[in-house]
């Protein structure tokens, strides 16, 4: 949908209007995203100390990252595993949205309770779940043993294989409410007439889902994926409060590793190199997801 304007100074006036409208947002992003990214890029090519003038280091940090640093490889792997959490969360959100969308009694109450966990402060969520998972007196262990699923209590956050899934579970608990709401928006945008037509052609509920609901929900699901990626940055507070990087580096994400390198070890040049790689990984991921979902970034198409 484009608006074509006339000639000469009308075109000039129109472009000043557009750039004027874009100016505040672009100023914020320039100041707080692009300049810092450039700062990190420059820094990753230097031996940089807080007290001494920096010296050029070429690709020294990148070489050390890929050859020596197995913690970097593990945190990279953990971050990708963490990204798998968001599709699971979206699937859950989709199922709940389908259930809540039905005309049943009290669906508003269900919808509010499920969404209530999103505005909760991440630090507080971390504290709550830290004690729910605790080995000796955690409620989860007590419940699992009560129903006989396990015979002795499991150290969820101290176990090398269970620590990361536990954090993924908590991050899903926190964001599934928002996924449900976004998908609900998509569901309610589908005009009911399409369903009547499908019923007349004899499509059962399963075919209705696959042929109508799911394709039309693609933009909402794409929006949830984008929010999932951004939410993985918020997972920093969760990992920081619950396990601080977990047993060994089992729950070390790229973001916690950047924070630890920059602020506990005061190695800003090394942390800058990890930031640059983290940024390019996520950019490639978004470009891929954008390409997959029909190239219109985040638009909730309806026509």
């Amino acid at each position, binding site marked *: 949908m484009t608006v074509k304007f006339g000639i000469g100074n009308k075109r000039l006036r129109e472009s000043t209007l557009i750039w004027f409208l874009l100016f505040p947002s672009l100023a914020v*992003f320039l100041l707080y995203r692009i300049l810092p990214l450039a700062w990190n890029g420059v820094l990753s090519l230097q031996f940089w100390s807080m007290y001494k003038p920096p010296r050029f280091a070429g690709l020294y940090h990148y070489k050390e990252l890929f050859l020596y640093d197995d913690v970097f490889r593990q945190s990279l792997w953990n971050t990708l595993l963490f990204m798998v959490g968001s599709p699971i969360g979206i699937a859950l959100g989709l199922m709940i949205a389908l259930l809540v969308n039905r005309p049943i009694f009290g669906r508003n109450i269900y919808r509010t309770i499920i969404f209530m966990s999103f505005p909760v402060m991440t630090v*507080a969520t971390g504290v709550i779940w830290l004690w729910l998972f605790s080995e000796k007196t955690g409620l989860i262990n007590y419940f699992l043993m009560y129903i006989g699923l396990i015979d002795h209590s499991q150290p969820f956050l101290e176990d090398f294989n269970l620590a990361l899934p536990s954090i993924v579970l908590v991050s899903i608990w926190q964001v599934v409410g928002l996924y449900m709401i976004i998908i609900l928006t998509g569901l309610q945008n589908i005009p009911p007439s399409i369903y009547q037509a499908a019923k007349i052609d004899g499509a059962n509920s399963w075919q209705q889902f696959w042929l109508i609901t799911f394709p039309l929900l693609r933009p909402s699901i794409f929006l949830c994926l984008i929010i999932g990626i951004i939410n993985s940055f918020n997972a920093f507070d969760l990992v920081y409060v619950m396990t601080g990087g977990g047993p060994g580096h089992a729950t070390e994400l790229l973001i916690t590793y950047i924070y630890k390198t920059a602020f506990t070890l005061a190695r800003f040049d090394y942390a800058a190199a990890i*930031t640059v790689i983290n940024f390019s990984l996520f950019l490639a991921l978004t470009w891929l997801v954008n390409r997959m979902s029909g190239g219109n970034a985040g638009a909730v198409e309806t026509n």
Partner: protein
Amino acid sequence: MRRHSLWATHLLLSTTCLVMLVPFYWLLKTSLTGENLFSYPPALLPDNPHIFYYVDAWYSIPFVRYLLNSVVVSAIVIVANIIFNAMAGYALTMDFKGKRVVILLLLSCMMVPYQATVVPAYLLTKELGLLNSHLGMALPLMSTIVCIFMFKASFAAVPRSLIDSARIDGVPEWQIIFRIMLPLSQSAIATNVVLAFTWSWNSFLWPLIILRDDNMQTLPLGLANFLSVVEDTSGALYAFCIMVLIPGLVIFLLAQKQFIQGLTTGATKG
């Protein structure tokens, strides 16, 4: 609705609600009884609950002062977010030379982890002289890229005839945005308010870096200080967690009719 599928729906939904509510209940119970959490088996019902832990928490951290700071910062962030995102969203509906570059730029900005931008952002805020101020805390969150795209989509969905007739009547451009387009994209505004509120209310690392004196601190900082000082699991920590959660929940429960209703009316029904 066949009989058994109704029951199935209710059963599934109530178990989900149970899973969502158990952590809150556990938090409330511990804030009332505050037993040493290493007594096994964990008691499901609170025994001799008392509210003295809330008194402890109240006197150890200036709660009202922190709440005020958090509310001011969130208010600035929400107001700025709606204005800036609406403006940018409207601009993106129009065609202009650098449009592709701007969209690519916005997409890539989404991917910069804010933890890594903290130090350069601090240096820039120092130049602006906004250190140690509410505006300084709000500035990085003033615009959210996801919401710009949402506004773009909902503006694009507004029927052309409405805009052209307004233009013919001589309505100025900005009135078109704020008087005609905005009221029609309720869902974008509602999502933007929810996201902006949550991310500004929960921001922890940025205020930690730029704030110097104590009476400017926000609630997450208060909770983190509490965790560091007390570093224990007595009821006072959980009481403070509850006190930190209540404002967010009260605002949400009061406004949730507008939020959810705004979200689910969708763009077209405007």
